[in-house]
């Protein structure tokens, strides 16, 4: 076991998979010579050379489409988006081409491509750079969507994503890049996509969450245990599509109360889907209405103190959790 930052864990996964399979190639803006805009790919150019670690121009539709085309021939590109927010300029490539080409070819083609990069608010970069598009992406059958919250999950899930034969969209988080965690040293650390992780066990309330909101939820759960005498279970989905709903159902059957926490605008969010599914499949288990903590419904505000207010926080999770527990 080593203690790594989330950033180092992502880098370790990239490095190990580049070493394991010569078809893997890392491409993106500033990934090579600059060592990565967020230093995720630091040192990889020196280690693997310019054929395997490739700088692209600022040209997302062009280079993402190029990666998708190469993947149809069996190359396994890992494409870095400096921010997932830039997916909108490559939308046609990502969601018309990568997502649909298998279906439209009657199953003759598959795209073993990974598109990864950070997708989060909270860094005062305004509305254009703060998108969290996991709901938009996951709305498209044919793609897989993964949002890891810890260093170990980031490594194990990214290695699985790179070995996956379908397009996998991997959403990291700039605020989590510096977070440390224990990571198994095993070079074959593979965490299956679509397997949730109960990050904290509890009996009175289930918080269903993923990404950075897992950290808020765990902190709130700790306060509730200490100050309010209630036991909160935190289910980290880790993967949005495929979705481990069995783990959610199992937890709901135990606690009978649910809070969903997400860094998403509430309308048509991942939480909207989860709420629908829980009422559909576990209605009789519920002792209280499902509540949800989401991003306040507006474009991401720049003003630093107000961005803190707009995003899910420990305080907001705590207040909502206590409300569900009291109802």
């Amino acid at each position, binding site marked *: 076991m080593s203690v790594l930052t989330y950033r180092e864990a992502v880098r370790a996964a990239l490095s190990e998979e580049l070493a394991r399979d010569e078809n893997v190639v890392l491409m993106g803006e500033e990934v090579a010579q600059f060592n990565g805009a967020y230093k995720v790919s630091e040192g990889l150019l020196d280690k693997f050379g310019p054929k395997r670690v490739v700088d692209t121009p600022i040209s997302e539709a062009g280079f993402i489409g190029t990666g998708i*085309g190469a993947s*149809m021939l069996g*190359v396994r590109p890992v494409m870095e988006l400096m921010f997932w927010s830039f997916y909108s300029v490559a939308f*046609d490539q990502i969601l018309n081409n990568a997502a649909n080409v298998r279906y439209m*070819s009657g*199953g003759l083609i598959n795209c073993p491509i990974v598109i990864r990069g950070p997708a989060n608010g909270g860094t005062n970069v305004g509305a254009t750079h703060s998108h969290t598009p996991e709901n938009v992406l996951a709305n498209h059958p044919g793609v897989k969507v993964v949002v890891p919250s810890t260093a170990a999950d980031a490594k194990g899930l990214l290695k699985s994503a790179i070995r996956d*034969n379908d397009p996998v969209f991997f959403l990291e988080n700039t605020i989590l890049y510096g977070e440390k965690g224990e990571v198994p040293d095993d070079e074959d650390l*593979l965490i299956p996509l679509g397997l949730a992780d109960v990050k904290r066990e509890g009996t009175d309330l289930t918080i269903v969450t993923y990404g950075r909101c897992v950290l808020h939820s765990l902190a709130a759960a700790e306060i509730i245990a200490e100050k309010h005498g209630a036991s909160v279970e935190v289910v980290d989905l880790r993967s949005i599509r495929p979705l481990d709903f069995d783990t959610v159902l199992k937890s709901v059957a135990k606690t009978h109360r649910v809070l969903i926490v997400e860094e998403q605008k509430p309308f048509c969010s991942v939480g909207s889907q989860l709420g629908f599914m829980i009422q559909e499949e576990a209605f009789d288990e519920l002792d209280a209405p499902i509540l949800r903590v989401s991003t306040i419904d507006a474009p991401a505000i720049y003003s630093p103190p107000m961005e803190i207010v707009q995003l899910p926080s420990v305080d907001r999770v705590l207040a909502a959790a206590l409300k569900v527990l009291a109802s």
Partner: protein
Amino acid sequence: MMRIRRFEERSLRAYQGKKIGGFLHLYIGQEAVAVGCCSLMGADDHVITAYRDHGHAIAVGMDTKPLMAELYGKVTGCSKGKGGSMHYFAPSLNYWGGHGIVGGQIPLGTGLAYGVKYQGKKGAAMAFMGDGAVNQGAVHEAMNLAGLWDLPCIFVIENNRYSMGTSQLRSSAGPGLAERAAAYGINWSKCYGHDIYEVRDTMNEVLQLARNENKPSVIEIDTYRYRGHSVADPDKTYRTRDEIDDYRKNKDPLIAFKATLLAEGVLTEDSSSVIDKEARAEADLAAEFAEASPYPTPEDIQKDVYWEADHPDQRTSQGRLFFN
């Protein structure tokens, strides 16, 4: 060329008989382009095109029965009835579609060239587009990458003069279309697409550059479609009957090629009519095959979405992939 012409004429009758849904973008008039270019394909050469894709599909060697069945939406179609007219694919023949969004296939074509080079093969990718596509940003991003990285990609602009109903004059600034390649330092040329020999000569030259030197090229091929943008286009607002008739009578690639082959003594009137009859019979057989084939079933709707779901014995992920 004759097989493409007769296949499409037959498909038009089927469309008019309401056997085919959606759009039907016919290639009639442009046949010498696809046939001329695709006839030069080697084992490591690849082709990708837009939605006017029937001609390229037949030119790379796809069987016309599953092509017609695809138009009918039948499970025996080349994409099992899931793609339709605009989305023909045959990876085993290095044919990568058949793409519906104008210009969207061009970065994929650049990616095919990237893959060929990455894997150390001596091949090229021909990425076909219409004249309307040259104003799409993705096309220029792809050209820039091909020029920057020396990718063996040949951008083929099939200039049929109209992007849907908008003429080149009303859609494209500057002196011409292929000329835009100069901005990326890419070799470019133009040719007359009604003469299959000229198409082949032009393509052959740029193929050598791509295969031997990893050099991309842009070629603009002057061509013309007799039918509307799609069959749904009444074709009455943006060009004259006289213009269409002039092309049909004086520039038709099939008539021109027949005349050349007759002059060369390769073809006789008799052998020419045999080719025509065989092409008509093949198209009729394809339509009969399509007619007799079953539709996909409701269970088929959720197949061919994920590689992993289609290979359950090799599945590594868990959880729900589909949400019903």
